[in-house]
């Protein structure tokens, strides 16, 4: 919706009276806005494009040309387990984020302004704490002599193994990624007219039915947007699984790092990287159309 606003502005600006001829020369430079983007593009190609190209090339070229690294990757049960686990953990994290983020974002839209500010603040606090420090906090919380286990012991329960387990990794990752779920959800939900639910109620729908049939479909673009961001970021997570996880919760990123830094096998590491990269972009391509908001806001009420 913001974009249509800009284009309207553009056409207004273009229809504005012509600039005097003496100004034309300077204007021609500014009329070629492409040049303004060039520095960013050069940086992008040099520090992102070239490195990624090198990874792709090495995955086919080292030690010999061919598909050997990919054949190795897809024929090794260990790798396939890790690949599957990466997707499973990401799916769990996304599920936890949707389950916790959806009600939270909904409440954000219905409470008063003061409480809303507080709720937004809670979502933003994790952003201003360094990522590594946040993971450290989870180590302190989840470890065997950690906060959660000492509380459990205090109440009389036995200790639970949390650190170096998949559960621990999911809990930590979901907390880090939850803001990426809540923010898009909230931005979609706040545009939904709550009177639509009242209308459904007045036409005889039960509250639950009004919610499921009217509200939920309208909020779906937010769910898709949040879920895809969380899932994609989760696929590439490295620090949290490395610190909270154990050998049984290794994710693809750790495996790549291991191949390259410890085993110096750039071909195999590259092939794994390409698999992760392709998975990410295929998911993005599938999800893009789903994220568009189907309903158009006519006028802000």
């Amino acid at each position, binding site marked *: 919706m913001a974009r249509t606003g800009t284009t309207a502005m553009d056409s*207004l600006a273009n229809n504005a009276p012509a600039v005097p001829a003496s100004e034309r020369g300077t204007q021609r430079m500014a009329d070629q806005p492409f040049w303004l983007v060039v*520095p960013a593009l050069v*940086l992008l190609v040099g520090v992102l494009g070239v490195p990624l190209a090198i990874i792709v090339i090495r995955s086919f070229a080292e030690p010999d040309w061919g598909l050997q690294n990919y054949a190795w990757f897809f024929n090794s049960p260990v790798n396939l387990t890790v690949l599957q686990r990466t997707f499973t953990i990401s799916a769990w994290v996304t599920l936890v984020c949707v389950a916790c*983020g959806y009600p939270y974002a909904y409440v954000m839209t219905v409470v008063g302004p003061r409480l809303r500010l507080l709720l937004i603040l809670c979502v933003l606090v994790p952003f201003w704490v360094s990522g590594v420090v946040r993971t450290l906090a989870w180590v302190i919380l989840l470890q065997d002599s950690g906060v959660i286990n000492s509380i459990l012991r205090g109440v009389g329960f036995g200790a639970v193994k949390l650190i170096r387990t998949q559960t621990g990794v999911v809990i930590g990752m979901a907390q880090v990624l939850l803001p990426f779920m809540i923010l898009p959800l909230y931005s979609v939900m706040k545009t939904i007219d709550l009177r639509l639910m009242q209308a459904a109620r007045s036409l005889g729908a039960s509250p639950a039915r009004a919610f499921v049939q009217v509200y939920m479909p309208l909020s779906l673009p937010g769910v898709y947007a949040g879920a895809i961001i969380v899932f994609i970021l989760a696929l590439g997570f490295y620090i949290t699984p490395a610190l909270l996880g154990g050998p049984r919760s290794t994710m693809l990123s750790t495996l790549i790092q291991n191949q390259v830094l410890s085993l110096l096998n750039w071909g195999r590491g590259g092939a794994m990287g390409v698999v992760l990269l392709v998975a*990410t972009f295929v998911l993005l391509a599938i999800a893009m159309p789903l994220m568009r908001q189907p309903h158009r806001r006519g006028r802000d009420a």
Partner: protein
Amino acid sequence: MKLPTRIILGLFCLLVAVWLVAPTFVVVPMSFNEKKSLAFPPDGFSWQWYQNFFTNPEWSASLVSSLKVAAVTAVFATIIGTLAAFGLDRMKSRTSGVLRALLITPMVVPGVVLAVGIYAVYLDTHLVGTMTGFVLAHTMLAVPFVIIAVSASLEVFDKRLETAATSLGASRLTAFRTVTLPLIAPGILSGLLFAFVTSFDEIIVALFITSPYLKTLPVQIFSSITRDADPTVAAVGTILFITTSLVIGAGLIIGSRQGRR
């Protein structure tokens, strides 16, 4: 909504809020631990880990390098990102849509894949463990945040104001300097801040391109956590949290004062 649903929903939200915020604070008591351990609950009280952070050259050097890298990165990323945001804003919407998507890709490329690639390039160009290497990589990662922040303020900026200024005789440069720039300054400023934080917090690429001579703070924290249970990391976490809270708090206060004027 019926009352029971309300109570359940409210409690659920409270739990989620606690889950979001509480882990941050757990670092604070650990930083005053008397023993060299991260086990909970901490024992006794001491300032020794704070002392260690400021006096141990390993820690203070990493803090200084992080600040340097982040400051230079923030300046470069803000200039490059602001230029790009202006360019995108002035383009035909089709081209700009494609370019915008392209320029934002650093945000979705998996960190380790990117880090491995950059490491490969840096090995060939002798940029591993250099300031230039860090600044280049971090600037690339930070530019998308600047573009997003500046674009957001350009979207609400009324271009007719600039046209009005030029029609009243201002040169384009004057119009830009005196009309456009002050109006989008908040966007540029928040872009600068985002760029600084992105660099200051970046760890994955840093882990690959670090050297014993140039280590950033996140790398130092990471290696400390993986090496032993040194409460200095908790002290660092507490200092970082308090500092950013103060900066953000000051920003909020200044912002609300300006809003009232």
